[in-house]
């Protein structure tokens, strides 16, 4: 009776695991802890004997057990592990050496190599072509997989954790050496030294997660290589690209690489590289360019990348020429672009075919609503010029000394530096990479989702752009705000070319209050909103509760949601993908986004492409994005401009519900019905000043009397 139950249990396990039943029966019949090998030549208990007896092309099924090494494979064999057999190097030499082509090693734990760097002790060392290393786990090996003149090989789906040693004494989790046409895909690599890819052409490096190492990926002489959809997180440098031609670096997520070099991606002597649709977040330097491109007739293209929360967005060494930048977004980097040294910075294109880049510190306007700023973006801060020659002064970045230097430069045009760069066609909105699969596809990677949130939080902590540019008003606010005000604006002034567009505006708003900024086009409402948000620098003071925009911009920003007049979603993403992407940026849990989809009646549209949504649905999606971090204050700029009357009414109803729920609203509008429907109070803005501050009923009476 007992045996019958045992038999049933085994059958149940077979069905559950969906594994070849014949093999499982064998497992049941043998003691897995000892292990055995089935091959075309019979059954063996010692792996080496099975390999010796095997013929070319045989498959060896290794069932469990711990097998001592070195395992020498000099025939074209397939070794397939069942029940995770262990190949144990016993801390001596290399565990598995492959010298025959077309070998497959799959399903093993490869453990305990020696630790001689000179001998390059490895988990698996390959010196033959067409070898596949797949689905193995590497534990306590110095090097993981070492391909040495092993073209057409594949390293896939492995988990590689090398020996826990001091960084310089560690080995490389993967080293590819003179091996063309190699595929490295979907490996999880932690705490190694460098993934080394040298002297090997036409590589494909795809979908790997590399963290905790020195150089996530290090390329030298890897022409025509593709690097895509990798997560390069928490290394000293995300990827170092050197001495290669036509390398494509696309759709990678590169974050929190903050070692001594601290590059998200470093390019040295690279020709005709394409860096496209990557996300560079919270690195010391998003991208570093040194002598790239190297050759006279080549170039390097940066297209559609996001550089966000980095200390420096992009850093150039002197004399770097002929790079092209288009459709990138430079969002809240402490220094957007840095040029080391004093050599003239020339011949780099910041706009290609009339498309420039988005700059979060752009001070300009888009009067013709074509999505591009009407005046060029110019990067020129005196202190940043000083940093170029004295980089160790960066520690003064937020000091009053720096503010006084930049203030002096503004006041005295004669000492104002020449602009570092000019983008003739700056974009007004951030451009979301189409392949946000770097976020969307991460559902199968809970650890990396967590990492994303964590690293973005860290990114937010180092973010303080307002300190660079905001000057503080010495005068106290003219009106004392109520003690329980949630938003307090004092003496806010903004000048463009010395012409004040916003003039000395002060007001405060109570929790749960909705305040309309009323005024005609050009009255200064949008500029006022952008100053309140810190999107553009201004004089004066803005507080949300105890949070000062000037002193604590990171927490301030977390407390404000913003719905712009028009938001450029990527049309090829669906609603859910868009929300996932912004959830990552806003550090919001996925469930928050899902709840917002329900609350805003967007759930039924989750899988629709954003480009196919109506104006009302797009606006609701924009509102959902603004609410991701559950901010107490919501700022909206002409939120119903592009909506038809029914949709507008519905949208205003949503906003009213938010107000009832305790949100504080401030919104710009020139539509009377919006103001009457939503506002408790109205600030009438004319020529950059608040002409009237009154309850909405007084405002409506004034309108009726044509007093406004």
């Amino acid at each position: 009776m007992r045996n019958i139950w045992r038999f049933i249990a085994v059958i149940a396990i077979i069905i559950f695991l969906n594994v070849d039943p014949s093999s499982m029966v064998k497992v049941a019949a043998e003691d897995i802890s000892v292990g055995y090998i089935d091959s075309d030549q019979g059954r063996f208990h010692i792996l080496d004997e099975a390999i010796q007896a095997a013929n070319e092309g045989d498959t060896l099924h290794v069932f469990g057990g711990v097998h001592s090494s070195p395992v020498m494979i000099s025939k074209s064999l397939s070794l397939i592990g069942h029940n995770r057999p262990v190949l144990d190097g016993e801390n001596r030499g290399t565990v598995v050496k492959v010298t025959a082509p077309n070998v497959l090693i799959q399903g093993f734990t490869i453990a305990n190599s020696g630790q001689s760097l000179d001998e390059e002790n490895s988990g698996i060392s390959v010196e033959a072509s067409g070898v596949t290393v797949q689905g193995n786990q590497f534990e306590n090996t110095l090097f993981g997989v070492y391909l040495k003149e092993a073209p057409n090989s594949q390293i896939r789906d492995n988990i590689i954790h090398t020996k826990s040693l001091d960084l310089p004494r560690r080995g490389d989790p993967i080293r590819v050496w003179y091996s063309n046409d190699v595929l490295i895909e979907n490996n999880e690599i932690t705490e190694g030294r460098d993934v080394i890819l040298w002297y090997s052409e036409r590589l494909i490096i795809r979908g790997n997660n590399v963290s905790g190492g020195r150089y996530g990926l290090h390329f030298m002489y890897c022409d025509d290589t593709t690097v895509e959809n990798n997560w390069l997180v928490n290394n000293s440098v995300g990827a170092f690209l050197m001495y290669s031609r036509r390398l494509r670096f696309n759709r990678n997520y590169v974050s929190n690489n903050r070692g001594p070099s601290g590059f998200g991606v470093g390019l040295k002597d690279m020709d005709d590289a394409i860096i496209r649709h990557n996300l560079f977040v919270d690195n010391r330097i998003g991208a570093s360019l040194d002598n790239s491109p190297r050759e006279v007739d080549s170039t390097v293209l940066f297209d559609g990348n996001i550089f966000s929360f980095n200390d420096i967005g992009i850093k150039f060494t002197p004399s770097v020429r002929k790079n092209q930048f288009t459709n990138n977004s430079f969002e809240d980097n402490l220094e957007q672009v840095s040029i080391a040294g004093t050599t003239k910075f020339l011949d780099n294109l910041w706009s290609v075919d009339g498309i420039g880049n988005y700059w979060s510190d752009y001070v300009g306007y888009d009067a013709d609503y074509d999505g591009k700023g009407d005046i060029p973006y110019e990067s020129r801060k005196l202190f940043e010029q000083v940093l170029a020659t004295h980089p160790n002064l960066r520690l003064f970045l937020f000091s009053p000394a720096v503010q006084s230097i930049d203030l002096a430069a503004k006041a005295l045009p004669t000492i104002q530096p020449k602009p570092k760069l000019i983008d003739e066609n700056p974009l007004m909105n951030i451009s979301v990479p189409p392949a946000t699969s770097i976020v969307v596809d991460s559902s199968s990677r809970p650890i990396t989702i967590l990492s994303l949130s964590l690293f973005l939080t860290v990114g937010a902590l180092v973010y303080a752009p307002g300190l660079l540019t905001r000057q503080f008003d010495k005068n106290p606010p003219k009106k004392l705000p109520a003690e329980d005000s949630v938003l307090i604006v004092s003496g806010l002034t903004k000048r463009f070319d010395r012409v004040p567009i916003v003039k000395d505006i002060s007001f405060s708003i109570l929790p749960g209050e909705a305040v309309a900024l009323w005024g005609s086009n050009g009255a200064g409402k949008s500029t006022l909103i952008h100053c309140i948000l810190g999107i553009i620098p201004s004089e004066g003071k803005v507080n949300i509760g105890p949070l000062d925009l000037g002193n604590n911009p990171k927490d301030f920003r977390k407390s404000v949601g913003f719905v712009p007049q028009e938001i450029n979603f990527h049309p090829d993403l669906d609603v859910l993908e868009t929300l996932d992407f912004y959830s990552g940026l806003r550090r919001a849990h996925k469930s928050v986004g899902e709840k917002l989809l329900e609350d805003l009646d967007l759930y039924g549209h989750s899988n629709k492409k954003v480009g196919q949504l109506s104006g009302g649905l797009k606006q609701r999606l924009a509102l959902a994005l603004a609410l991701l971090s559950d901010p107490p204050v919501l700022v909206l700029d002409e939120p119903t401009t592009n909506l038809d009357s029914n949709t507008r009414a519905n949208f205003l109803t949503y906003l009213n519900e938010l107000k009832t729920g305790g949100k504080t609203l401030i919104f710009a509008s020139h539509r009377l019905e919006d103001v009457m429907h939503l506002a408790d109070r109205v600030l009438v803005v004319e020529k950059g000043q608040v002409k009237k501050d009154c309850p909405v009923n007084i405002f409506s009476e004034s309108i009726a009397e044509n007093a406004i």
Partner: protein
Amino acid sequence: MKTATFLITLSFFLSVSCTSNAGLGEPPKLFYGEDVCDECGMIISDRRFASGYTTKQGISRKFDDIGGMSVFLKKYPEEVYAIWVHDYGDQNWIKADEAYFVVPGNIVTPMGHGLIAYSDRQEAKQTASRFGVEVLSLEKVLKVVETHPLLHKH
């Protein structure tokens, strides 16, 4: 507050005038795992291949690879006071003009130049003869090292 601002401003300007100097007769002070190579931007981790020099103005440069230092000097010639490399055996600093250099061909240096240095001529000769290569002087190294790593076959 005004005093604090003044002090910070003062220290800022003092910092501007007090950076990047080192003792002329001493090798550069290297912090392994923290310092970054002046040529390639990579972290200097391996003492065996680390090198550096001081200029006559007292500025010190640091490199992760002897070849990288040579490349840097070719690209940005400066008035050098003293060049330093490490002995591959005992890993102590030695003056480069008193060192013997070898490219054995099997040693992977951080930038792939493959150059190692010895203070002892005999030791250098033994390594060189083992690999069938010649012993190089600093002058020769600075001459033959090209912009790209020596090890590269293609």
